[in-house]
């Protein structure tokens, strides 16, 4: 029983990361109808840059995470403004291949700047590990859950109560009408990418002490984020969190029965299943189906 609860805690941490990835992915999809296949690289870069700053340059953790987030956000904005929006033809394949290429370029950038080594940054300070009976809640897990809570609240507030958030929702629901109301669609798109990049970078930086930072980890971050997003309902923020948690649980739950390598395959298998059987996800898409 205790082992079960202990496993559930690891699941929470993993799930929270997938939830944040799914949230960012959904924000971009809602705003631009583009599936950003480079999304996982935002997490990877957040992890790698902050880890490199802490380990090699001795930068203070808070500052390192902040710098990493800023850099990744800038890269996200460049991706949208100077790459995707410049594309001559914008078919689905073009957008997909552009984002995949961008992901590879990001990976290559990391290799050139930070290197191919796997980095192990230390856990964040400030919170002590909590122990309840024989179960312990590692401090980093608490940090991750706090991050998820903070981001969820921030995004919920943004989209429901601020002018910017409402403008973004209008732009994603009906771009033409939004433009007629004076909303700058391209700016909304930029903001969406900035949100996705920054939240992704934070998630990556927060999980790096647990899972290490490595230039190849973007693919799996991305795919599991997609799985969480599709499972919960693409573009649906509550679905993103639900999906992320479910994937985290299923992964950790299966870790006892299959080797750790296969547990990655399970999340992917789930993604394929959802796509084929119920692409709307458990909670349905954010947008209403137009007749």
């Amino acid at each position, binding site marked *: 029983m205790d082992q079960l609860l202990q496993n559930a805690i690891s699941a929470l941490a993993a799930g929270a990361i997938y939830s944040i990835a799914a949230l960012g992915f959904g924000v971009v999809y809602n705003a631009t109808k583009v599936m950003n296949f480079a999304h996982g690289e935002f997490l990877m870069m957040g992890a790698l840059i902050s880890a490199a700053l802490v380990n090699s340059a001795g930068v203070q953790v808070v500052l390192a995470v902040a710098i990493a987030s800023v850099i990744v956000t800038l890269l996200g904005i460049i991706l949208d403004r100077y790459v995707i929006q410049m594309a001559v033809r914008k078919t*689905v394949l*073009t957008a997909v291949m552009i984002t995949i*290429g961008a992901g590879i*370029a990001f*990976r290559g950038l990391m290799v050139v700047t930070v290197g191919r080594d796997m980095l192990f940054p230390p856990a964040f300070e400030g919170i002590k590990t909590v122990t309840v009976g024989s179960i312990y809640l590692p401090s980093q897990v608490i940090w991750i859950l706090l991050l998820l809570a903070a981001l969820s609240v921030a995004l919920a507030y943004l989209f429901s109560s601020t002018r910017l958030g409402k403008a973004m929702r209008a732009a994603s629901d009906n771009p033409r009408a939004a433009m007629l109301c004076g909303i700058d669609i391209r700016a909304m798109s930029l903001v969406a990418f900035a949100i996705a990049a920054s939240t992704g970078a934070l998630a990556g930086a927060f999980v790096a002490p647990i899972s290490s930072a490595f230039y190849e980890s973007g693919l799996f971050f991305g795919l599991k984020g997609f799985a969480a997003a599709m499972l919960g309902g693409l573009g649906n923020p509550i679905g993103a969190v639900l999906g992320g948690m479910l994937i985290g649980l299923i992964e950790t739950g299966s870790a006892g029965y299959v080797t750790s390598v296969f547990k*990655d395959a399970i999340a*992917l298998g789930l993604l394929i299943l959802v796509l084929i059987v119920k692409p709307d996800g458990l909670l349905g898409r954010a947008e209403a189906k137009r007749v």
Partner: protein
Amino acid sequence: MTTIPSSEIKPALAVVILVIVAYFLAPTDFHLTVLTIVAIHGIAAVALTLAFGYAGLISLGSSAFFGLGAYTAAFAVQKMGLPSLVGLLMGVLVCGTTGYLLARPLLRLNSHYLAMATLALGVVAYIVYGQARPFTGGLDPGIFGLEPLQIFGFKLAGPRQMYWVCWGALLISCLAGANLVHSARGRAMRALRTSEVATSCLGVDTVGLRVMVFALSSSLIGLAGGLYAFFMRSFAASAFDPGLSIDILMMVLIGSMSTLWGAVVGALVITVLPNLLEGFEHYKLLVFGLAMVAVMVFFPNGLVQSIVDAFKAAVLRRSGSVATDDAERRAAP
């Protein structure tokens, strides 16, 4: 009319001549090895051009079929004791059948979801290949010491011999593909891309057609995989990582979305490029990623296609003849 559509004779001859010349000009066996790999990749790229360029199916999971073809061929020879040609054929059939079975559920997906699903499939296959030790030997040692390909009693091993086998297979694949494109089914495929509704109202089973193309494409990729197995004779799952799927798709995009020969050019570029960047190991990923983005942003019809189109447009401006234009269009597949 001959066995090859008239518009394909010139490119076919060009390729044949270049292949023969390259063999004699190649300084070392290493160069021949690289060129043989180009041919093998080329077969996969042609397959993907058919599936994607003509039937509009985005697949980011070709590495799965490539590996399946390789492992099936190896299994047939090493574990079932079958002759190598039979193993090769089995690889083709297993991939074709798998492609056929996967096609119906996959093709119901819209393009975005299809891209995601095939990407995930490629990664799942990679994981399975790495773990399924009884069939694949896992990550280490994988398959080793596979007997070479035997045709009519001749053992074909090493780049000097496999060069001809692989380029021959590529040529046949291109011609078969061209025959398909120039047929009634080929026309239906092209029509399908513009308007699926209109095409089905003309009596074309559009879903069935796309399933067929996907199955055919998968079998060809299986052929490439099988040839890879008999050429390398030792390999492990690391050869079939998801990056391979992206590489093959890039070959299609560098080449052309509307001619099969473009895929050959694409295979040449993508396979040879990393070798040229030797010494700049560090920068390979970055350069590849940037190149990919640049091609997709500025040349979405395929880099070679854009160059060819620009060339044709320049020629037409000089001659100013509508008839030439029509003849060109009639000639292009």
